[in-house]
């Protein structure tokens, strides 16, 4: 029946989905509540003023005391994508390769459901992994309006969609690598390395001149690294993220069709 495999996997991942959402909500609330103490602290802006590489490594560039700068440096340039990726890459690696290694995929793959539908249900589950975390963060950031943290709706929506799409991209890449290799370890290694490289390129590009043109190779740039918190998510960048996800998903469907399920 439609959706049974997705529901099963959601039930198996429920704890981590809600656990991360609660953790992220607590963290986001602390960040939001701290803003009034730092908003007039001009010394903080000096940290990033001269194009500090250290600040850039943590995802912080530009002024830190504006609402969008504060949220960018403390949430959306680093922690939110990190947690989103933990969830989507984690599920992406376990959904096909991990379950195959555990032996449980054989029970699923012998149900009267085509491989393609199995993979699509798992893609949908993967896309849902990061929704609770993202919503919890959004709610806390909205609560920030009570702490002088005024942030535009388009920026908040844009960066939230951007980080969700980023998670879907790397989650889909993890599913693709898992469907090709059948190995959870390889999948986690390859996909995490790709994500780390993309993060470094995007966060260092503003301060390292020779890396500047390379930012277009990083999915982080399209998702959260191009001022999305203040300006929103450009349609073109959303299309790039969606296109990468579509390619990875098609690749995953084709590879899973040929995977030897133990």
């Amino acid at each position, binding site marked *: *029946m439609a959706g049974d495999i997705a529901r099963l996997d959601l*039930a198996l991942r429920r704890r981590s989905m809600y656990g991360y959402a609660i953790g992220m909500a607590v963290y986001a609330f602390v960040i939001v509540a701290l803003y009034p103490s730092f908003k007039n602290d001009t010394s903080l802006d000096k940290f990033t003023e001269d194009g500090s590489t250290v600040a850039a490594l943590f995802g912080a560039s530009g002024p830190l005391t504006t609402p969008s700068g504060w949220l960018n440096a403390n949430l959306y340039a680093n922690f939110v994508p990190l947690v989103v990726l933990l969830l989507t890459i984690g599920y992406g690696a376990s959904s096909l390769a991990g379950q195959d290694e555990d032996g449980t995929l*054989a*029970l699923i793959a012998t*149900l009267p459901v*085509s491989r393609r539908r199995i993979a699509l249900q798992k893609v949908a589950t993967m896309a849902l992994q990061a929704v609770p975390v993202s919503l919890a963060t959004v709610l806390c950031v909205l609560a920030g309006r009570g702490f002088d943290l005024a942030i535009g709706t388009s920026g908040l929506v844009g960066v939230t969609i951007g980080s969700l799409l980023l998670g879907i991209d790397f989650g889909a890449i993890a599913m693709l690598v898992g469907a090709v290799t059948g190995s959870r370890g390889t999948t986690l290694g390859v996909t995490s390395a790709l994500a780390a490289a993309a993060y470094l390129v995007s966060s260092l590009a503003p301060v390292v001149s020779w890396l500047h043109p390379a930012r277009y190779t990083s999915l982080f740039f399209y998702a959260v690294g191009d001022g999305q918190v203040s300006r929103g998510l450009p349609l073109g960048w959303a299309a790039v993220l969606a296109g990468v996800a579509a390619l990875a998903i098609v690749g995953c469907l084709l590879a899973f069709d040929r995977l*030897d399920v*133990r």
Partner: protein
Amino acid sequence: MTEPVVRVESLTRRFGANRGIEQVSFRVRPGEVFGFLGPNGAGKSTTIRLLLGLYRPSFGRIQVFGLDPSCDSVAIHRRVGYLPGELALFPRLTGRQHLDRFARARGLRDHSYRDELVERFTAELDRPVRTLSKGNRQKIGLVLAFMHRPDLLVLDEPTSGLDPLLQNEFISLVRETVSDGRTVFLSSHELDEVQRVVDRLSIIKQGRIIVTDTVEGLRKAAPRTIEFRFASTVTPDAFTGLDGVRVLHCADGRVTLSVTGSVGPLLRAAAILDPVDLTARPADLDELFLSYYRDEAEGVSDGR
């Protein structure tokens, strides 16, 4: 003759050198219990995964209900119940959650047969499966395989972990299933289990089928053990050249032989040596089975 439920022809699947299965052929007829016997690592599970479309063949042809598992797996899976050899369940879910979710995924609404099976196997349903013993997990696997009354059951080492009482229960379930006109394909490395329940069987060794026959047919071909006692010491040379005769033991005037086929030539050869006594034991399927496992040099026959 009616169309076979499973038809496998020259099926080959290679995983690098010396692994996988080679030129496997057999047919499973509707309503029979077909055994697939072989030592661990012989290729039983590989063949089963190919039947279910979990693996793709390198060469050869498979048909299940006349369909190709590589492209019609959904239609095949609808009519098949599968128990994997190394059954893995979801550790945090209970038995009941497994049964409910898989029943729903198969669109199974009438749960009466499922509940009957749970009762027969005394399956523990309310604890997370990670806390269950291997045998208790196996019971849940058996219910998952049988609950939708599939036309074909593919059971890989089905009784592993079950106590003798439940093994008997399993065998009566298999008999009921075939008396319903349904078909059972089961693999095992234990001859006892297989000869109690199967109609026909294939023996697979190192990825190749070495014989396919009925249990009765195999019994006819099985070697008898014959022992001669001679008045004086003899050498085994007198017997080693004879067709179908293998010298098991030879010392102090006693010669123990394993014999297949006619005993005439053997008796004539022995008569010359002046035997004082002779004992013969009837055909032993165990000995046959072991001889198939043992004989590296024997030719390979694609029995069907």
